């Protein structure tokens, strides 16, 4: 595959979102030879996704704060000596560390004594009847549509779920000229109010909050706090969205009246889940921390995992939002420089102190936002027995429950028995629903466990992976006796 040896660096950073891009810039400043890899065409990650070249910002409008922050992040990175390579999908990691990526020219192999994983998150959607209908999309997916394609998800949109993406998506739709039929929020106003003291330390957010409020008032968006979508109905495509009041744990109240809304699109998301497949693959220890998004790699104050010289940063290390993500990225880079013997202890302390101070100021808000997006275990009760839970393998809740009833104790055992999680989504779409259902029966998410990480981290193209080769050069393994 790679006849010459791997290209070597001091530190490899995976993911060029706010966490990874800041880390690479900081590592370069600390004198490390650093490589930054991302599958996207540019740095910025999910939040600071650049506008595609064909879209220029609309006439007479100043770019929003996210676009400005993203441009600053990219400028700092470009001004540094960090080697950034885009359109590289990392598909496998080996201890020590080897990084295997698939790029425009095929498989690439890199090596470094230190590795920082800043791979971000994926969205949690707990299944409900009708969630697989066309017209139902994730909230996070909707931000991508709005940002990089400037496309509205529909004309009459219900926005539902949890956390700040609700506001971002609703505001984006209104800005694009769409109609938001309802904003259906799992949280109560009191829960949002808990953000206020923490937000006091983040004046950068006031403008955004004020902007959303104004947009909501202008667009007359009906708000349904402490409500959940209990069903989406067709035929063929979303036509009606049924919502009902819920308790604090997300479970619909027993006597709850169901309200039916007419809509042609439903954007729904129940929070973000840290992407841990890379740290799992490398054997790092993980902990279940619902308030930080779920399973995360155990880390110390400098973002070191339980595996030597393996670091995590950003929302993949526990949900905290973009600003803390960038700060934790910088801290992890400094820790790596110190652990590699490239930064003296005193120098490390001097550089880390201001980053830590700023992190402390932003941490409370990050934690409050993460709590808003935490899994509500009662939500899975809206899954009826015949609702599809695993879309890739066509498995209903009943089939999952039967396997649990027969004695599947742990999520990988359930996977072998039912094929749940074996499809191309690799368990990202169904994992949280299945684990919620199982935890309700076996006692805890810890008992349910995590999917065993198996390469590739995302499906990879057979042709690209195998590239050009000749039969004579296949590295046949030694055989056992016939």
């Amino acid at each position, binding site marked *: 595959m790679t006849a010459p040896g791997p290209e070597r660096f001091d530190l490899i950073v995976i993911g060029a979102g706010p966490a990874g891009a800041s880390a690479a810039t900081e590592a370069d400043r600390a004198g490390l030879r650093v490589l930054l890899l991302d599958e996207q065409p540019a740095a910025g990650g999910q939040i600071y996704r650049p506008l595609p070249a064909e879209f220029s910002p609309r006439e007479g409008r100043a770019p929003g704060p996210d676009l400005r922050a993203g441009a600053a992040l990219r400028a700092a990175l470009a001004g540094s000596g960090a080697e950034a390579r885009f359109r590289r999908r990392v598909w496998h990691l080996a201890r020590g560390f080897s990084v295997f990526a698939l790029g425009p020219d095929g498989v690439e192999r890199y090596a470094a004594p230190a590795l920082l994983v800043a791979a971000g998150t994926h969205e949690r959607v707990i299944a409900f009847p009708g969630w697989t209908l066309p017209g139902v999309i994730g909230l996070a997916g909707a931000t991508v549509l709005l940002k990089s394609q400037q496309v509205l998800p529909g004309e009459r949109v219900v926005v539902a779920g949890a956390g700040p993406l609700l506001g971002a998506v609703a505001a984006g739709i209104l800005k694009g000229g769409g109609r938001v039929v309802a904003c259906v929020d799992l949280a109560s106003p009191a829960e949002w109010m808990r953000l206020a003291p923490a937000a006091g330390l983040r004046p950068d957010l006031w403008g955004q909050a004020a902007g959303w409020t104004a947009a909501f008032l202008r667009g007359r968006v009906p708000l349904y706090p402490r409500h959940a979508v209990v069903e989406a109905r067709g035929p063929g495509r979303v036509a009606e969205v049924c919502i009902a009041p819920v308790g604090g744990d997300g479970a619909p109240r027993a006597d709850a009246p169901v309200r039916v809304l007419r809509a042609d699109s439903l954007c729904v998301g129940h929070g973000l889940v840290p992407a841990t497949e890379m740290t799992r693959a490398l054997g790092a220890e993980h902990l279940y921390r619902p308030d930080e998004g779920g399973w995360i790699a155990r880390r110390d104050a400098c973002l070191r995992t339980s595996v030597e010289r393996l670091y995590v940063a950003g929302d993949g290390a526990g949900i905290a939002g973009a600003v803390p993500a960038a700060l934790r990225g910088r801290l992890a880079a400094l820790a790596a420089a110190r652990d590699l013997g490239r930064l003296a202890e005193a120098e490390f302390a001097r550089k880390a102190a201001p980053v830590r101070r700023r992190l402390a100021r932003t941490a409370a808000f990050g934690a409050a936002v993460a709590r808003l997006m935490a899994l509500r275990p009662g939500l899975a009760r809206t899954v009826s027995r015949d609702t599809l839970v695993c879309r890739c393998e066509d498995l209903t809740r009943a089939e999952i429950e039967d396997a649990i009833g027969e004695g599947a104790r742990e999520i990988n055992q359930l996977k*072998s028995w039912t*094929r749940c999680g074996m499809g191309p989504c690799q368990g990202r779409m169904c994992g949280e629903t299945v684990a919620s259902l199982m935890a309700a029966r076996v006692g805890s998410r810890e008992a349910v466990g995590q999917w065993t990480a198996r390469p590739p981290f995302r499906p990879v193209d057979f042709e690209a992976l195998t590239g050009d080769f000749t039969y004579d050069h296949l590295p046949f393994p030694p055989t056992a006796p016939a």
Partner: protein
Amino acid sequence: MTAFDAAVLGGGIMGSATALNLAWGGMRVAVIEKRALGSGASGVNAGTLSLQIKRVALMPYAIRGKELWATTAKRLGVDVHYRVVGGMTLAFTEAEAEALRTRMAERIAAGAGAEMITAARAGEIEPALAGERIVLASYSPLDAYANSSVTGLAYRRALVAAGAEVREGAPVTAIDRAEGAFTITAGGERVVARRLVLAGGAWLKGLLRMVGIEMPIHYRVNQVAVTERTRPLFKAVIMHALGFLTLKQSDNGTVLIGGGWQGFGDPEAGGGEVDAENLVGNLRLARYAMPALAGSRIVRSWAGYEAHVPDFMPLIGPLAGVDDAYVIGCVRGGYTQGPYMGQLLAELILGREPEMPLFNPNRFNEARAAA
């Protein structure tokens, strides 16, 4: 605590099949498994049930093992997706063709049920193969496969139905013998049994040490990969003259790719890890044989441990020096033969004459040999 008639340590195919036959034979049996039944090699293997890739010395056992897989759905009550699809072994060079001719002549004589075919015939049977690259092939209409990931489910259901006790999540950490019974410590609990069957797969060495026996048990780390669902491309199990490839497409369209390419890992330290270079090598060979695979995507790959002793022959029978203790393991291609090997050992334990000879496990017993 009433004693079980037998405790089987390790719930792979070897332990599960032994336990099931003991339970069917009227014994009170406990299966004690570290993780889950079928969580080791028996649940992650490639599921190939082909006689073309079996050693001549083991052919009669493989034939009987394959027969048992054919009736598993009926016997165990779980569909293991047993499919008779035929199997084809390919040689791409003259040297490989020569090796194929010699090996296959012996195996055909031993009952593998295959015949040699030309490249043209191979292309007729499976048009998706790169016919122009094939020099020679062998074919058997009898070859089959099954889905190994449901091994644990199948045996668990049958064991429970037969009244056996199944303890999962229970790693055995100590075995003591007193007053004609074994006391087994597993996952904080104790199990007492009059007979002991060690069936720990690649972890057998550790279990043997618990009864004071040292054996030269080694392991290989075999890799497998699978594609997403793709359009139907082929039916037969496709293999390679030197054993480096197994290809099969399931009813759901996924293609499973194996062939004994090696990964990394140490059973004592945890699960096996995939070696990227070897994964790519395995996939290249697959694509060389079947170019249309290039249009699919790989969704998953993994590695599992397969144990062996220096002569690559099984260890099955009573352990010398420890009364009422038995071992079963180190069977190469053991998924195919497991159901039958377990039946043979159970026959011996139940006091019957096994249908075929067992495999003296004491031939490598280093500690006892030295004593």
